[in-house]
């Protein structure tokens, strides 16, 4: 028998704290596989943000530092600017961390064309703290802080981060992908690999926004959650490449 699919050495061999069916687990695996395939684990320093993935430093099999809520892109900038060029720096952030408290940091990291890789997990909710509204929560979406469903007049409209950051000349590669079925998981991995390869090739700021599930706080089972991503999130957050040019070297 020949193994066709095995556990990646990019992840430390242990159970995770994530809820059953939470696609953080899939995304962690994809990042681990990519780092393994790029033979970059020894070169990599990851920055964990604050949210469900705060404990990601227990899982990624590389050096990790843990940032204050919203500040991972700034911590990553500090690391990237002082470590040798070969080092790969990535942040792993949720939508509350990146698009709410940390919006300033991510916008300026992109505007600076910071040569880092940002893994942005968009599950349209604050998971760790019990299901509050996030900047990416959809209209009508019931959360702990929008019990009647998110209403535009009071809570404003969900933010399409990839499109927004793509307007920044400093950003080199921005793609939104999803994990709601096998073909999309495969595509997500391709995007993550490209985002890390870009950094290796010093092409500047790369971010992959990954639509993800939160069965516990959506009040859906894992399978229904995948369906919700497909039926509700993808229409509002269209998948695709929003920026793909090498800012550094090939000119703007």
């Amino acid at each position, binding site marked *: 028998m020949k193994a066709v699919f095995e*556990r990646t050495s990019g992840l430390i061999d242990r159970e995770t704290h994530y809820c059953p069916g939470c696609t953080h*687990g899939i995304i962690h695996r994809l990042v681990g596989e990519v780092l393994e395939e790029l033979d970059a684990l020894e070169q990599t320093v990851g920055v964990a943000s604050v949210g469900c993935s705060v404990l990601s430093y227990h899982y990624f099999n590389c050096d990790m530092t843990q940032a204050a809520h919203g500040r991972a892109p700034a911590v990553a900038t500090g690391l990237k600017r002082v470590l040798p060029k070969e080092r790969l720096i990535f942040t792993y952030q949720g939508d509350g961390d990146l698009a709410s408290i940390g919006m300033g940091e991510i916008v300026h990291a992109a505007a600076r064309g910071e040569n880092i890789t940002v893994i942005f997990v968009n599950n349209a909710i604050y998971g760790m703290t019990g299901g509050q509204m996030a900047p990416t929560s959809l209209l009508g979406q019931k959360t702990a802080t929008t019990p009647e469903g998110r209403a535009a007049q009071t809570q404003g409209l969900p933010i399409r981060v990839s499109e927004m950051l793509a307007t920044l000349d400093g950003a080199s590669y921005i793609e939104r992908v999803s994990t709601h079925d096998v073909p999309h998981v495969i595509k997500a991995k391709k995007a993550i690999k490209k985002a890390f390869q870009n950094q290796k090739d010093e092409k500047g700021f790369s971010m992959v926004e990954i639509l993800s599930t939160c069965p516990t706080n959506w009040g859906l089972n894992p*399978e229904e959650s995948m369906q919700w991503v497909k039926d509700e999130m993808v229409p509002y957050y269209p998948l695709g490449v929003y920026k793909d040019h090498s800012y550094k070297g090939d000119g703007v």
Partner: protein
Amino acid sequence: MRVVFNEDYCKGCNLCVAFCPQAIIHLANRLNQKGYRPAEVIEQEKCTSCAACARMCPDTVITVYRPERKKEKVS
């Protein structure tokens, strides 16, 4: 065995069950040490080693194998 489940890590989330094209995965009737019903495959011979289950698994529970084809053994 074509598909092996590390039952201790399984959280019984059912995604592999949902995404297996051959529909041969189901949750066992026993509980693992975390209190979840782990996924398992009885009819291993029906598995095509496509690894859809392993790709959809959030907890790296699944390892997938494929029988060596005769030709490969010779070379």
